């Protein structure tokens, strides 16, 4: 038996473990197959699919490029505004929550409670907030802003907390030793450490909020979602095509720029 064979024999054997997981996965897969049925697909759905593809490839250019209040450009601008303001609202609200959830700043039970609150905020679907907030502000973009803001809190605060817990406390200690005041410690010791991470997280969330804001129209909270669903419900696939093209181009552009800026922020 040479050394290679020995090495092979020495390799850990966890076939039982892997096998069990594979069987569980296969069972789950079969179980979840019961959710779908193919009997609703018929000649008609093929025709609809063909119409959709045709509409998407022959968009309504009139809708795409005119400058009235129903045009795609105006609606996209509204969507960006909702996403932007929503991110700002969420980012502001998330800061105190993040400090309350950081275990190196507040006592353990309090941080645990705040974390629980954040999990609850994060799990409630955005559209539910949308439907609830419409009762507050009435339908329109304002409800969208608040919805985006509240849904952003969960993720923003979670990522803020990670940054806060990684704070380098040695910097603060050395500042104390040279006699800095509390304000100076916050201004020159804490803010520079946190700012770039916070900004980068915010930009990332703005990127995600664009997607969020584009569907809020489905419940009447402003943005491009409402015209999109109306066009779909009335089978105007060319209009759907022009809206989707506008949306996809905008989201890709924002993603490109946000990646650029974030790369710059990370490198300093």
């Amino acid at each position, binding site marked *: 038996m040479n050394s290679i064979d020995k090495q092979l024999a020495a390799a850990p054997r966890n076939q039982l473990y892997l096998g069990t997981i594979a069987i569980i*996965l296969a069972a*789950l*897969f079969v*179980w*979840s*197959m*019961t*959710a*779908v*049925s*193919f009997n*609703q*697909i018929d000649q008609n*759905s093929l025709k*609809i*699919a063909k119409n*959709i593809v045709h509409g998407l490839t022959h968009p309504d250019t009139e809708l795409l490029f005119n400058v009235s209040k129903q045009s795609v450009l105006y609606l996209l*601008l*509204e969507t*960006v*505004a*909702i996403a*932007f*303001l929503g991110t*700002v609202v969420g980012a502001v609200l998330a800061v105190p929550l993040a400090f309350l959830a950081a275990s190196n700043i507040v006592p353990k039970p309090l941080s645990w409670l705040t974390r629980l609150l954040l*999990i*609850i905020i994060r*799990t*409630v*679907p*955005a*559209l*539910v907030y949308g*439907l*609830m*907030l419409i*009762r*507050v*502000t009435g339908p*329109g*973009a*304002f409800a*969208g*802003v*608040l919805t985006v803001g509240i849904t952003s809190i969960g993720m923003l605060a979670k990522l803020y907390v990670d940054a806060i817990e990684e704070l380098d406390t040695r910097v603060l200690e050395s500042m104390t030793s040279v006699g800095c005041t509390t304000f100076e410690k916050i201004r020159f010791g804490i803010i520079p450490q946190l700012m770039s991470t916070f900004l980068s997280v915010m930009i990332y969330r703005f990127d995600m909020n664009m*997607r969020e804001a*584009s*569907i809020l129209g*489905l*419940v009447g909270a*402003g943005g491009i979602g409402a015209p*999109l*669903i109306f066009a*779909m419900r009335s089978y105007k696939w060319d209009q759907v095509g022009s809206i*989707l093209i506008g*949306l*996809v181009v905008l*989201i*890709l552009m924002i*993603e490109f720029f946000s990646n650029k800026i974030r790369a710059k922020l990370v490198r300093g």
Partner: protein
Amino acid sequence: MFDKLFPPKKMMLPGGKIVLQKRSRTPLVVLILAVCTVLSAQFTNFSFPVLFDRIHEFFTIINKMIPPDWGSLSGIWSPLLDTIKMSLLGSIIGAWIALPVAVAASSNIVQSRIVIIISKALLSLLRTLPTLVSALIATFVFGLGSMAGTVAIMLFTISYVGKLLYEQIENVDMGAFEAMESLGMTRLEAFRFAVLPQVLPGYISTSLYCFEGNVRYAAILGLVGAGGIGLLINEGLGWRDYPAVGMIILVLIVTVYAIERVSEHFRKKLI
């Protein structure tokens, strides 16, 4: 450009040397952000008076949700299981399809530029399409029900797992791959034995993470008729039956939390 408008500050060091300190860009960035905020606020009719005047409505609704209506629990199980099934099936199939697409999109494995560009464009197109929109389109093709939701989740999973996977494959250490090729293995064999073992833990972990997120997404797909628990939420809010909605949300939070815990356990083991 910026440096020309606001020339850098000159400073004389004690040794007589002159150094330039670039002006901080922070005021400019703050100004731009402030202008954007004000413009967006006007555009969306954001108003604090309305907010402070009527925000109590929001908390009234939340108050009505507590305590939740335990009686409605029996009707929730079946749609909840449907939601989990949809996201599970969509994630499994999507993750499988993502593998070949990601391989076709990675520039160090595939040599044809056209294939790479097409696959990458396909992945980013799928990724920008909001899940709810693809679910809506799917309801027109596959009819109302969980089939449409499954398809929508599958498409999202392909795009998400596919993107992260091809980034991993492109960053893989190619030494082993080249060594195996030089020993006379085909590219496919070399990929199987040199690249796959390197990316497999990351791939499975990404798929699990995507599944976690998909459970959340699946919960709202019912709002557009694509099956699952979203339909119940929509009905409950429509009828203003807030205790029932509270129950659904409570069940959803527990489910999502449990799934996250299990998946986090396995993801930690993988890496």
